[in-house]
């Protein structure tokens, strides 16, 4: 009974939050609703007994949305309402219908072909965290490593992009803000 109550409560909350995210014209409302929705999703993992994934969902998405807040802070006055530019309405309509159809197809496809079988049954007497680790380092080792390499590439490119005159402290310098390297001087 508690599971059912929790499921419907959090389903309602999650959908409400994401609805607010897409409909509001307030950047702060949108971001907050997004963060709340992401955190409410973790409740489903907890209900299903996947505690580790639930906690990771909270940790990862609270940090990720925090970065979005930082962008929001830089680009908007978050206490004012934004006027969105509305493009061609037919394109918007067409794309949203297409997206809805795709979602239905994705969820319906396994049901049609009867492909849902548990390939990796639960190991007896092993916790949730160890279970995730085992699957991650056996069946999904290659995607896991590829994801790691992608993150490494992203990190290195980020450092390269931001690394100009990194050894000069912008806080301590009393001159003008740091410019691009001056004309005629090669670094």
């Amino acid at each position: 009974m508690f599971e059912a109550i929790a499921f419907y409560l959090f389903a309602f909350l999650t959908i409400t939050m994401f609805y607010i995210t897409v409909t509001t014209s307030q950047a702060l409302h949108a971001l907050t609703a997004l963060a709340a929705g992401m955190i409410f999703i973790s409740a489903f993992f907890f209900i299903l007994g996947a505690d580790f994934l639930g906690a990771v969902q909270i940790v990862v998405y609270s940090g990720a949305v925090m970065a979005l807040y930082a962008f929001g802070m830089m680009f908007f006055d978050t206490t004012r309402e934004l006027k969105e530019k509305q493009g061609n309405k037919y394109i918007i309509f067409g794309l949203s219908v297409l997206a809805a159809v795709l979602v239905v197809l994705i969820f319906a496809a396994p049901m049609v072909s009867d492909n849902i079988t548990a390939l990796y049954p639960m190991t007896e007497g092993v916790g949730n965290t160890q279970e995730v680790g085992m699957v991650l380092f056996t069946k999904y080792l290659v995607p896991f490593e590829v994801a790691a390499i992608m993150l490494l590439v992203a990190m290195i490119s980020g450092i390269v992009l931001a690394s100009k005159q990194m050894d000069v402290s912008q806080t301590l310098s009393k001159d003008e803000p740091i410019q691009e390297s001056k004309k005629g001087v090669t670094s």
Partner: protein
Amino acid sequence: MEVAYLIETVIKVVVILLVFSALAGIGTYFERKILAFMQRRLGPMNVGPFGLLQVAADGIKLFTKEDIIPTNVVAPIFKMAPVITASTAFMAAAAIPFLPEFEIFGYTVHPIVADINIGILYILGIMGVGLYGPLLGGMASANKFALLSAARGAAVFISYEVVTGLSILAPIMMVGSLSLIDFNNYQIENGWIVFNLYGVGFVAFILFWIAAFAETGRTPFHLIANDHEIIDGFGTEYSGMRWGLFFIGEYANMFFISFVIPLLFLGGYGDGSLLGALALLGKVAFFFFFFLWTRAAWPDVRPDQLMWLCWKVLMPIAVVNILIAAIIMI
């Protein structure tokens, strides 16, 4: 679902809420007295014996003050932000074993609300969400200083979260579990983690301790609400009990992190005897005292210094520490 279990859980939740809300209030009294002692002042003296009733006076003031919502703020978010700080602090407490299990009238009580097997990850995650309070309060306030404090909050969050996560990896590898009760049981057999594995545990302990100061926003890293630079940061526009909720959240977080550090590194409540329980409370008292001690003894760092410390010093040390731990354990 047994009725007894349900009643027990509700009672535990209520007790923890009451005890730690009260402790948060008394914590402010301790803080004033200890700071005053270290700075050769008297601290609160006038209200009640030794100023003990100062806490009650502050409470009356906060509860009866007018709740002002300024004109230009984003009202729903502005009202919600303090609640996030206070509630997440108490949510994190659900996975902390406060005492060893004991018997009362023949009924065994486990002083932990939910013994989930990912305890420490859950606690750190929820405490991280707690920083949304200052962030949202700052961004919704329509005030320059509040916005500055929100920006600092985001920077601190992204920096220290990495160090906290990496520093506890080595102890987790030793124990092989994320539950704080398993941590405690491991330390009964193998000694305190802080002395384990040729100093690896000690380095992890120091890193986690430093990160705890950033997590709770205490003095060396008090830059989110630095009185002498940005007024009260995110709290500038708040008044009355909404501001008080931020305060309760901060102090409750200090108490909870003071419980987590000994449970992770310093043997926790030991073998479950009365002595072990008292030892745990003593360790908690020491760590709470240390929070106040640093406030009297150290200056604040600048935001860029905190970032430098987190990314260029602590994170490499943490990663090397994990590598060494892995090599030794293989």
